[in-house]
């Protein structure tokens, strides 16, 4: 047992290496499963080692808490529908944040209690104790406030993604000054705590950090949630790294940095796919600033569009050579992925080439559409990323857009006045025929009208995504036999 304690750092090193391999595995679906297992092994090594490192651990409390956590976590993991992954991930981020705050609070109280007891007494009883240095206090303060912001911001993101009533988007001129005020006050109390060690300042700093997390994310609109979720992913990593510094535990630092950079990269990819900067997403409000002039430009000219029935659409598709399906948030919302897969299979049986085109920001989190399609058993090879498929659109007979809007808006390419100008899009408008399944002519998250819907080649099919797709399948079945 002494052995494990003496060589603890070596065990943590093995864990850190396995964590890197976990992420490495995700480069492809075949290696990913093994990668996930490396992660589990690494975690097991870390937890077992820590039992020997901890000073007088209360084993029954730790094990009990772990078992309870395992029950809750596994139950949730087994039952959560894939359409609810974004809010589940947001909720998980909040747990990391809250845990980081609790650890920081516990560490400070622990330190204070031991100081109260007196180092001489402890030393006389053979208990080694070093009072926290300024550096440690600083690291703890960073871990605590990053954790606190992650916690409340993620809770809000969860509410927003799960469409809870309490998660209201806030807007108005007061928001930015209030954000700034809370942030400055938070830093002020943090610095005071660091200099004086005053517990009052510590509590004030933590409370303000919790408040800041909320007012920071609350003005961000639903369409920008992929960026927010990625960013909070990054934050949860930095919180772990902060705690790692306090404990001088390299595995925590490595794991935290890996997660931190992972989330940062995802945020960057999402921002790039929307042609926006992270600053713009977080502090620009819900695209309201840019979209307002367009919407306020008086009564809009009534424009003509062509609408058709699901039967017509089905007939057209079954006679096509190639069909590209562009899924968006509407498919997730309508839980239409299985119906879409049925349709794709039927078309394939009829000799039609069917592929799926995924925009990086389709859905509410990175990779959201891919998971839904994978759940519905759509073959991995049939799903293409934006860069892979864009050149194929001109030669495509039919593009079927299901509940996507801004990601196929040609204004992003040719209207320099459009707020989304410059955003990379799926060039569905280049196809021979475009079909759009939508609930109504309402605008997308950017609040913009979409020229694609008024295109001569476009046919609008109104209705619930799942219902319409099922009707299309029925129509094709009817004509086929």
């Amino acid at each position, binding site marked *: 047992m002494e052995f494990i304690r003496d060589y603890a750092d070596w065990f943590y090193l093995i864990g850190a290496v396995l964590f890197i391999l976990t992420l490495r595995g995700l480069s492809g679906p075949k290696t990913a499963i093994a990668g996930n297992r490396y992660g589990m092994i690494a*975690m097991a090594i870390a937890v077992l080692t820590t039992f020997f490192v901890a000073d007088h651990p209360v084993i029954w409390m730790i094990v009990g*808490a772990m078992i309870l956590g395992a029950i809750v976590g596994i139950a949730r993991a087994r039952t959560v529908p894939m359409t609810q992954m974004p809010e589940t991930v947001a909720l998980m981020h909040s747990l990391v944040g809250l*845990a980081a705050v*609790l650890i920081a609070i*516990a560490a400070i109280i622990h330190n204070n209690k031991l100081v109260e007891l007196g180092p001489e007494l402890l030393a006389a009883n053979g208990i080694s104790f070093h009072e926290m240095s300024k550096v440690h206090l600083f690291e703890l303060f960073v871990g605590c406030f990053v954790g606190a912001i992650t916690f409340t911001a993620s809770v809000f993101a969860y509410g927003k993604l799960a469409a809870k009533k309490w998660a209201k988007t806030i807007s108005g001129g007061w928001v930015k000054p209030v954000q700034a005020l809370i942030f400055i006050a938070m830093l002020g109390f943090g610095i005071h705590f660091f200099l004086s060690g005053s517990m009052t300042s510590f509590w004030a700093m933590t409370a303000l950090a919790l408040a800041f997390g909320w007012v920071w994310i609350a003005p961000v609109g639903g369409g920008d949630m992929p960026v927010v979720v990625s960013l909070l992913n990054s934050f949860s990593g930095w919180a772990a790294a902060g705690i790692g510094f306090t404990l001088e535990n390299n595995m925590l630092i490595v794991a*935290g940095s*890996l997660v931190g950079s*992972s989330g940062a990269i995802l945020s960057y990819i999402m921002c790039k796919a929307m042609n926006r900067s992270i600053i713009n997403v977080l502090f620009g409000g819900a695209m309201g600033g840019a979209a307002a002039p367009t919407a306020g430009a008086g009564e809009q000219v009534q424009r003509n569009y062509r609408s058709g029935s699901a039967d017509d659409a089905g007939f057209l598709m079954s006679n096509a050579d190639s069909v590209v399906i562009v899924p968006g948030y509407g498919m997730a919302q309508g839980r239409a992925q299985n119906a879409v897969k049925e349709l794709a299979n039927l078309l394939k049986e009829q000799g039609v080439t069917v592929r799926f085109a995924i925009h990086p920001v389709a859905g509410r989190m990175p990779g959201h559409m891919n998971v839904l399609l*994978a759940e519905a058993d759509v073959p991995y090879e049939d799903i293409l990323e934006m860069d892979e498929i864009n050149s194929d659109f001109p030669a495509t007979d039919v593009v079927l857009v299901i509940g996507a809007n801004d990601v196929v808006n040609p204004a992003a390419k040719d209207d320099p006045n459009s707020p989304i100008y410059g955003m990379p899009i799926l060039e569905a408008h280049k196809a021979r025929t475009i079909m759009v399944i939508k609930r109504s002519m309402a605008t997308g998250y950017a609040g913009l009208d979409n020229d694609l819907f008024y295109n001569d080649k476009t046919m609008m099919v109104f209705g619930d995504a799942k219902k319409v797709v099922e009707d299309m399948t029925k129509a094709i079945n009817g004509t086929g036999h």
Partner: protein
Amino acid sequence: MVETITIFVLAIFVGYYVVWGVTPALHTPLMAVTNALSSIIIVGAMIQTVGLPVLGVDANVQFQSINVVSVLGAIAVFLASINIFGGFAVTARMLEMFKPKQKKKEG
């Protein structure tokens, strides 16, 4: 101090290059698994779930199991465990879906 910062900076670089290698189709599993990974803070939580030394009647130091620090630590262990078990399990579930399946005969 500088050693820990060295590790921190190098790990960020490793993370940067490794994560760029992740295929975009697996970005949702990536987020789920990184959630589980950041729950490595359970190590910090466990280190706080410890008995506190208190002065006994006979001036001896004894360890008290249930105290404010260990309770906070245990709650943190609970929260991190939800994430660890849930994160790895949900990732495994998703990755299973991405596995190429044998074609089922229909009809």
